[in-house]
């Protein structure tokens, strides 16, 4: 069967080989977990504990600040020793709860549900909400909100995003290989919540073992299809994924639900299963620690709140020529210099680039109008024009070139031979333009 895909995109070297073969290892829980009260898009949580209070693993420590928000739980048992503001990777200060680990690993009471599939859609949704689950591919949009589409937007398809199109990252890959059944159950739960009877798992073709494992697991599921996708960035962007799998085009400025689709990430599906089956809140996730700047690239199951320094150390530490630490993938991730930053629900990877992989981008030339960015832009925009208009300060004119359809995937910037900082210029214009 021909591989499904979308128009545009690029093929950066994916370097998945560094960590794709490394099974997920449980990472030693941290001495101190620093748990931000805002790890999601939406209102931050308000603290539900006080300094000095003993907490158990899985206990609620952050009360959602509204409907578009996600509960936060303790990832270790122990004592709350501080509340402090820390800088998150995006450069914003967030209130965080610091829990001193007592190493007892005592769980808060969890509600086991062997018959979770018998629960009503609303009960399942409640469990997902209580578990504080968010989009774990990096977008961190609260999952229960995505599962509550307005009445006038009927949903008929759920897609699990196993594209993992960001180079280097292998967290979703390992999860599909090691726990295909759980991911699939997660999908079935999501389908039940939305009353949908068509489910897909889209996987890029560079993960044949994951495709095979998922197909095996889904062999007796008539309503679920595992589809192989062409390896191309940004295949895992929601709109591109929906286009590739269902051939539906999310209208410009619209959302997946406008075409009857809900997309959830592999890690999210896994968390949904654990929440509904065991009542387990989201307190850990799979994180890929990789790059040529890391001695032993690995995949870890790490507690939320673990400082990334501990992940780097567990993966053998930096190599001699490590120069840059990125949270997330190389195309859309955030570079950080503070290694005390904790793993959060959206941390799919800790990527350490070496000197040879890192592309210094201080110097750039004029646009030579080669058209590469236009051909590659998955949104069909003209990044060259956007960058030129922004560079010259004609911010208002960028609207004529549909600047707000840009989702900052970085594809244009990756391909540009003149090394122009196109997305950076687009971000600037987006900030300065009046909507």
């Amino acid at each position: 069967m021909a591989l499904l895909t979308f128009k545009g995109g690029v093929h950066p070297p994916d370097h998945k080989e560094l960590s794709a073969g490394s099974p997920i290892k449980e990472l030693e829980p941290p001495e101190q977990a620093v748990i931000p009260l805002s790890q999601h898009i939406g209102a931050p949580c308000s603290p539900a504990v006080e300094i000095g209070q003993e907490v158990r693993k899985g206990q609620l420590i952050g009360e959602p600040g509204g409907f578009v928000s996600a509960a936060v739980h303790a990832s270790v048992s122990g004592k709350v020793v501080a509340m402090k503001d820390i800088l998150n990777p995006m450069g914003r200060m967030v209130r965080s709860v610091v829990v001193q680990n007592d190493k007892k690993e005592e769980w808060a009471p969890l509600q086991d549900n062997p018959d979770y599939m018998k629960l009503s859609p609303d009960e399942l949704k409640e469990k997902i909400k209580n578990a504080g689950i968010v989009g774990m591919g990096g977008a961190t949009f609260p999952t229960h909100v995505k599962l509550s589409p307005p009445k006038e937007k009927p949903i008929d398809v759920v897609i699990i995003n196993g594209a993992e199109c960001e180079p280097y990252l292998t967290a979703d890959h390992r999860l599909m290989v090691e726990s295909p059944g759980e991911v699939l159950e997660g999908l079935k739960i999501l389908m039940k919540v939305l009353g949908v009877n068509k489910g897909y798992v889209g996987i890029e073709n560079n993960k044949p073992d994951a495709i095979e494992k998922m197909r095996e697991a889904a062999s007796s599921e008539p309503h679920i299809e595992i589809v192989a996708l062409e390896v191309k960035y940004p295949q895992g962007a929601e709109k591109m994924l929906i286009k590739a799998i269902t051939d539906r085009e999310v209208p410009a400025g619209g959302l997946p639900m406008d075409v009857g689709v809900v997309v959830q990430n592999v890690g999210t599906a896994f968390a949904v299963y654990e929440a509904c089956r065991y009542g387990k809140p989201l307190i850990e996730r799979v994180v890929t620690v990789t790059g040529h700047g890391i001695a032993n690239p690995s995949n870890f199951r790490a507690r939320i709140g673990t400082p990334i320094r501990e992940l780097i150390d567990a993966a053998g530490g930096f190599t001699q020529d490590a120069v840059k630490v990125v949270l997330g993938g190389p195309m859309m991730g955030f570079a950080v210099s503070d290694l005390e930053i904790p793993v959060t629900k959206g941390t799919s990877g800790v990527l350490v680039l070496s000197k040879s992989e890192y592309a210094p981008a201080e110097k750039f030339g004029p646009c030579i109008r080669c058209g590469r960015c236009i051909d590659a832009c998955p949104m069909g925009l003209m990044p060259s024009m956007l960058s030129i208009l922004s560079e010259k300060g004609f911010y208002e004119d960028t609207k004529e070139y549909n600047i707000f359809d840009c989702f900052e995937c970085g594809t244009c910037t990756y391909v540009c031979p003149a090394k122009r900082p196109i997305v950076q210029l687009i971000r600037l214009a987006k900030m300065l333009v009046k909507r």
Partner: protein
Amino acid sequence: MAVAKKEQELIVSVSPHIRSEESTSRIMWTVTLSLLPAFAMAVYYFGPRAVYVTALCIVGSLFSEWLVQRMAGKEITIKDGSAFLTGVLLGLNMPSSVPFYIPLVASFVAVAITKQLFGGLGYNIFNPALIGRAFALITWPRAMTTWFTPTAAFMGMDATTTATPLGIMKEEGVQKLLEVFGDKMTLYTKLLIGYRAGSLGETSVIALLIGAAFLLYKRYISWHIPVSFLATVGVLTWIFGGKEGLFTGDPIVHLLSGGLMLGAWFMATDYVTCPSVKKGQIIFGIGCGFLTALIRLKAGYPEGVMFAILLMNCFTPLIDRNLKSRVFGARKEAGK
């Protein structure tokens, strides 16, 4: 080996954190490389003068770029290969016999005026090499249209000037052309390998196609402009090119002669001066083809490729503005 790193040593910059290997200068030098077969054939047919003329153009181009950037206090970018490429293209567009000052002046017009005074790389409206050539043609019409047969040029028999195939066809018709070359097959073959009068680099169709294939393979150019350009010339000269009425023209002679192959594959595809959206490129190619055929068949000049491309260069901004790429998810009617 694990290495302790100080946090201050870590670089923080915004995404994306990786970049493709492609660069402006790599593109320029690769395109230059793709002209090597054509240049080699030029040397083979026209001898040392091919080297001499091309070298003058290159030196003139590099010097002009350096001079303007120097005077404007801008960064000197002669190493990026773009001025070098303009020099090569200009050289390949010159007859072998031009006196030394023509390449020098033409390359100054090309690089200093057409390119740098319009804002430098990326901002020029017209293809620099073609403006350089157009200027030379208008200023020194005799010298720029004095052609030698390949062998004559090589042997240094500068008495044997001749007309180009297109020139013969224009003046005396296709019949005369056949007389000169023998029969149809010989004619086609000689045009293909380039054994004919013409500018240095335009004569050998084979050599040009090898270079073009290389660029297509490397995806440095796409088929859109050359194919629509060539197809339009082919169809129009077939329909209107014959003396005996419609559909009696010989499109093959037209496709293989003059500067068409050099122009369609290497000049019309210049990134800076052609539209950057594929739809627009097809319009651009058709426009080039139409104007080429019009000039060749109906105007005073035997050859029209140069003026056709230059004229279409004027339309590039207009085409780009009106034929934007289709935005993902745009409603059908809205997605111009």
